[in-house]
């Protein structure tokens, strides 16, 4: 049993500590949270039930003790689950998850026209790869490849249809002001991108 003491803290500190405690505890370890202010208690309760984490509460005077029961079904919060599986619904054969990180709209450096051609060719070929990569992450000028007038778009669409997750860096599309010109993929912040790259078994960088 892990104990998180939030006594004397005000919102949102108790929730932050709760969340931290849940992450630090072993997956099947119960977590006990000590809370002494009613607002934080109500917010923590709401947070736990929204994230489908079973808990019990007992009170001792002004102190409430919330115990998160994880002994039987250790369930991560939905978004944690999403992060852990963001790269693939199920691992590719051999258990290897391939993530393609596209940092530029050109492949290689030296000749720009050549680089553009090569990148298009890369995507045309990537579609044929078996099994399909778990995810493709676009950042920096790479995001332009997913734009509505990009010749690579049809191949990216094809990948998405084959089950590859397409992630596009939000900061980058804001930087280029092209948000409304991206017909595929989900927008991701750096936190999600870092998680996807971390969880990859190997990374291809064209």
């Amino acid at each position, binding site marked *: 049993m892990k104990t998180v003491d939030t006594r004397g803290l*005000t*919102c*949102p*500190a108790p*929730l*932050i*500590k*709760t*969340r*931290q405690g849940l992450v630090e505890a072993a997956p099947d370890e119960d977590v006990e949270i000590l809370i002494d202010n009613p*607002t*934080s208690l*109500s*917010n923590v309760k*709401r*947070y736990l039930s*929204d*994230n489908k984490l079973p808990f019990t509460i007992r009170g001792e005077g002004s102190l409430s003790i919330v115990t998160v029961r994880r002994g039987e079904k250790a369930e991560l*919060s*939905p*978004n944690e689950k*999403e992060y852990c599986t963001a790269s693939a619904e199920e691992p590719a054969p051999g258990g290897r998850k391939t993530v393609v990180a596209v940092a530029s709209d050109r492949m290689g450096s030296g000749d720009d026209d050549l680089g553009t051609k090569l990148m298009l060719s890369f995507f045309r070929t990537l579609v044929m790869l078996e099994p399909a990569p778990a995810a493709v992450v676009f950042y920096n000028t790479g995001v332009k490849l997913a734009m509505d007038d990009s010749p690579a778009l049809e191949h990216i669409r094809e990948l998405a249809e084959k089950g590859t997750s397409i992630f596009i860096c*939000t*900061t980058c599309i*804001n930087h280029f*002001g092209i*948000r*409304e010109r991206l017909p595929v993929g*989900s*927008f991701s*912040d*750096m*936190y*999600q991108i870092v998680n996807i790259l971390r969880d990859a078994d190997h990374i291809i960088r064209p």
Partner: protein
Amino acid sequence: MLFDLLTTVETGGCSAKIPPRQLEELLKDMPLPADPRVMVDIATHDDAGVYKINDETALVITTDFFPPMVSDGYEFGLIAAANSISDVYAMGGTPLVALNIMMFPSTRIPMEVYKNILRGGLDKAREAGVSIIGGHTIDDWPPKYGLAVIGTVHPGRVITNAGVREGDELILTKPLGTGIILAGQRMKMITPLQHEHAVSLMKQLNARGAELMQKYGVRGATDITGFGLAGHALRMARGSGVTITIDMKSVPLLEGAYSLADLGCIPGAAFRNLDYTEGGTLFAGDLDYNLKMIAHDAQTSGGLLMAVSPEKSRELLKELHESGYGGAALIGKAIRKREADVVLQ
């Protein structure tokens, strides 16, 4: 710094509002004004009242004040004033004059800070073309500041919560997450750059957004403040008799807001707003929990949420991007009234 204003408060900015559900409950039996010249009152939960003077001119009248959300007095003044004036813009109006509203503990904080707050308010008002022509101060702890603002609008061009039409697309002009970022700042969980970015957006006037709304014939809009995107969308949907769908994945977020929410840095106001919206809101089964909470994050001096006909939306968005609202995005649409007033997906 002369004095850190954040030491006076536990919650700041629009987080300090009374819970919306409680407020609606309290106000529901209050008689509404009977004067036919009152064009907009609290019946539609709007941002400001509108009073018709003649066929050419209506007055837009609003007030807002709150405790500090930043440490520095001058900066607090700038943000509080931008936020107060914003309600006139949200109605499509042009602000003209304002009065200072100040509560200040004269024996506990250096009076220099008082001057700095007023100076910030004055500078922001000047930027908006508003003359501050008076005010009122009482001794109180913690300090609070804001403006009562009067503007004008053509009676035929008033923009309200009730003006959204089925088929309209919704544009949000500023990224979300100021409440979370300010809480993160308090908890020392964010970088100075992330804080600076949030502050710069809170200081930004919605003036140009209001001009563009008139140019593009927008009739339904609101500014996103204490009740969060979801709360204000709900008021708009109910006011207009439509259902509003919002695609949370396309909502621009302040850098750092998502990670903070994921770490549990979710201010209490977001939970209060959730209490308010859940009666009328359908949350898609696969809606990310953090995005759901960000949709309920109380914004201070947030952006405009405007409903525009689909054939004009791209052009309006483009002009917004060119007018200093780089984070503006198309985030949803208004559809025929369904059971839920708002669908968050």
